[in-house]
């Protein structure tokens, strides 16, 4: 680990101010990606701005929509009865991230800001048409995820909450990498009235994406069998030692079917 300055902050204003004054600062939420990266000396920020003490970011509010403070841990989302009854798929997704240690430290804000191409939350954000609120503005999910590990966030900008409209039906199906258990393919399907939104994580060579072929097929009938003749091109999908692109393409359809069948 390289040396860095550590700042423990207690409110949003303070955190942003410290970040602005840092030469090459980075916010730390749950630290589940950042800390291993630091330990392997793969990152060398001059300043770490720890926002674990910013308690105003922990809140979970369920009303017309489900609003998760950016520091809400995966465990707190998974265990929230309010989230479970409002959007069960969201609680299920949170319960399936990493292991208990990761779920007790990792946060939605950290996950979304990092936009790991195999992370689960970006699929929920995109499929549920979430709005990401920062200290400066609101960004809709369609505009937020801009590529692998890339987002619309600007320098110093801090996510404060992510809000999800309640769908009529939704489900998330993950096919895990046997080794890391990150998603090789994760498919989130959501039905809002007659609108279908689908997002795929783990598979796209440019990060999370909406498969229009699947959305079109499901728009005519929100049933698994509606996807019987739907195919996905492997061209823009990842290929690695765990899964080649044609396998991922097949898994996307299979996981989408299973998600539709499970949607509630």
């Amino acid at each position: 680990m390289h040396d860095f300055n550590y700042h423990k902050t207690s409110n949003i204003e303070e955190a942003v101010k410290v970040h602005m004054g840092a030469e090459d600062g980075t916010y730390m939420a749950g630290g589940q990606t950042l800390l291993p990266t630091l330990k392997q000396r793969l990152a060398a920020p001059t300043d770490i701005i720890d926002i674990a003490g910013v308690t105003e970011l922990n809140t979970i509010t369920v009303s017309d929509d489900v609003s998760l403070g950016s520091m809400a841990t995966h465990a707190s989302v998974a265990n929230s009865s309010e989230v479970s009854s409002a959007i069960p798929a969201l609680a299920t997704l949170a319960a399936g991230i990493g292991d208990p240690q990761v779920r007790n430290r990792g946060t939605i804000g950290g996950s979304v800001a990092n936009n790991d191409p195999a992370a689960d939350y970006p699929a929920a954000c995109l499929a549920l048409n979430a709005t990401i609120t920062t200290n400066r503005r609101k960004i809709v999910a369609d505009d937020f995820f801009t590529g692998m590990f890339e987002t619309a966030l600007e320098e110093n900008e801090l996510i404060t909450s992510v809000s999800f409209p309640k769908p009529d039906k939704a489900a998330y199906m993950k096919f895990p990498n046997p080794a890391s258990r990150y998603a090789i393919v994760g498919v989130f399907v959501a039905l809002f009235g007659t609108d279908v939104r689908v997002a795929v994580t783990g598979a796209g060579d440019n990060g999370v994406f909406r498969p229009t072929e699947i959305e079109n097929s499901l728009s005519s009938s929100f049933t698994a069998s509606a996807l019987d003749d739907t195919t996905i091109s492997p061209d823009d999908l990842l290929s690695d030692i765990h899964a080649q692109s044609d396998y991922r393409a097949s898994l996307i359809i299979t996981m989408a079917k299973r998600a539709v069948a499970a949607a509630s």
Partner: protein
Amino acid sequence: MPDGVIGTGIGAVVKRVEDFRFLTGNGNYTDDINRPGQTYAYMLRSPHAHATINSIDTAVAEAAPGVVAVFTGDDMQVGGLPCGWQIHSEDGSPMHEPPHPSLAQGKVRHVGDQVAVVIAETLEQAKTAATLINIDYGILPAVMDMKAAEAGGTLVHEEIETNKCYDWGIGDKSAVDEALASSAHITEIDIVNNRLIPNAMEPRAAVAEFNKATSEYTVYTTSQNPHVIRLLMGAFVLSVPEHKLRIIAPDVGGGFGSKIFLYAEETIITWASTKVGRPIKWTAERSESFMTDAHGRDHVTHAKLGMDENGIFTALKVETYANMGAYLSTFATSVPTYLYATLLAGVYKTPVIYANVKAIFTNTVPVDAYRGAGRPEASYLLERIVDRAAREMGIEQVDIRQRNMISADAFPYQTPVALEYDSGDYQATLASAMKLAETSGFDLRKKESQARGKKRGIGYSTYIEACGIAPSAVAGALGARAGLYESAEVRVHPTGSVTVFTGSHSHGQGHETTFAQIVSEQLGIPIENIEINHGDTGNVQFGMGTYGSRSLAVGGEALLRATNKIIDKASKIAAHCLEAAVDDIEFKEGNFTVSGTDKSMAFGEVALTAYVPHNFPHDELEPGLDETAFYDPANFTFPGGCHICEVEIDPETGVTEVKNFTAVDDIGRVINPMIVEGQVHGGVAQGIGQALLEGCSYDSDGQLLTGSYMDYTMPRADNVPNFKVGTQSTLCTHNTLGVKGVGEVGAIGSPPAVINAIVDALSDMGVTDISMPATPSKVWQSIQSAKASS
């Protein structure tokens, strides 16, 4: 439990006495040890698979904060790491043994090769300084493919002018060719035995200290065989005599073979401890374990099995390429030869067998023994080709095995590949496993799976292995540069408690319990009165350590013989005290009795008398009660058994679930049934790991693609079912205990059962083979290929 057992003897389910300290965090592992004035070593490793080192500049690093010293290969001019087993090629020439330096000498040969060591006040300072070392590499093409490497081209070691270490053979080649030519049918198979990365829970570590006052080195290290390390490091590398080199392997958190070998790092810090005059600690990070612990398996094989019209085996011909990696690790050369090809008869009466093995150098981590070591490669090959032969001949899997098995009355049985099996009853273990696995209900279970859209298959493996390595005379004749006996000292204390010093080493096997049970049974004393001491060359007599499932069959037998000597001596003392002839003394349940009388002495009384010999006739009877035995076995032991696996495959995703796994093993006499069950569970989990999950992968440049748990899949609890485990034992005929060994049976017997089950599940789709690990992706691809070609 046999008669006369006092509750902690042979056959008793005694809870593992070592578990209290392990489970409460009170173990004492190498990294737990800290010495006054200790410094920390960090190894700078090659990022390239193959490169010349044109120059190294350490000046800036040496001046960095906290740095005590920086050393490179130029500084460390000592002996190379030796190889312990010499193999001769078929043409009679000795194998090629290129130098194996601890710190690279002008060239690096695999990613992770040690280039320099930085020693500093803290580990962080050493790591930071290592980034300041400037190395000019001349990158060379990586030698990765064994068959291409055999043909020539780029050489891993220029000085030997070839990439082939040896070209070895066993068996009668012309007889095999003849028999194959006249066979009614020949089944052929191409087999890859996937390269595995060991992954002991505790990474390798060492702490080395040199005492100027006594000129004595003390090295704490994560070893399965500290005396072997002392001999190799002292005599071959550093020229330090044994009485000045003390190796201590304290609690060791798993080895699976990977901690048998002498490694560069422990050697480097021992050497450097004199240079810096302070203790040095080195502990591997997990990523270093991935790229420096000796890997396992990595065979590429083509085999032919001849049969007559009834499916009776007539001949087996095997051609294997075995990957040695970049250097010869300590026992690397013996694994694909004497621990592999000698097992190719399996449990079958195949009359003639020939195997050729080519050992090849590549720019990868050295390959050596890993749980099973050669025998899993043999059982996988045989049980896969037998499975395929049955399918090609239209014979049931059970039937083809029964037709060809060595019968129970044929022992001792001489195989055509050197070994003589002493005992076994393969039909009985097969029948017992089938009953436990409820194979008669399989068809119904298959239908039920079908109804859920799943493909179900069943796979058999009737395997044998050789343990208890080894008769020293046999091993020596085959090229071993060491004897393979084991030792035990039983030291009875004046009040009757006992300390045992064993040359075996326990790193998870539970020796402190099993060995104590033997002593408890023999001397009739409670297990609480017995301490098992191992791992410190400073207080244990020379021993060969633990590997190849040898601890009980060789070390346990040595212990038994030492306790017999104790009983003999104690009987003499009792005879003297009780004024009887020694032949009239009976020893039973801890009491020495003059037969036919009520005159007796308890074991503790005799022990006290031994150390308070007020009226001993010293010309006839020495004081003390302390005996040592060295035991060199007459033969290998031959555990075997039958593993039956049932899998269910999701054809849409390729996911394989192991639904049932049954193992019935013949391991000879069972000392502690609970420990046996645990050993089988662990071994089978590793075997399922090899079959479904684990596969070391390099790219064509020699970069390790599976360098962390993000990409290397270890078996986890949800990857394995609840095992059904049983024993169906015949006794070993050449050791008194009748034991055969259990440590490796799970890993040896299980992989072919899993793969055979997958092939069975998918056979109706046209799938005839699938390579390990059968990942979801691979299973799915196999289904697609079969669909495309049907």
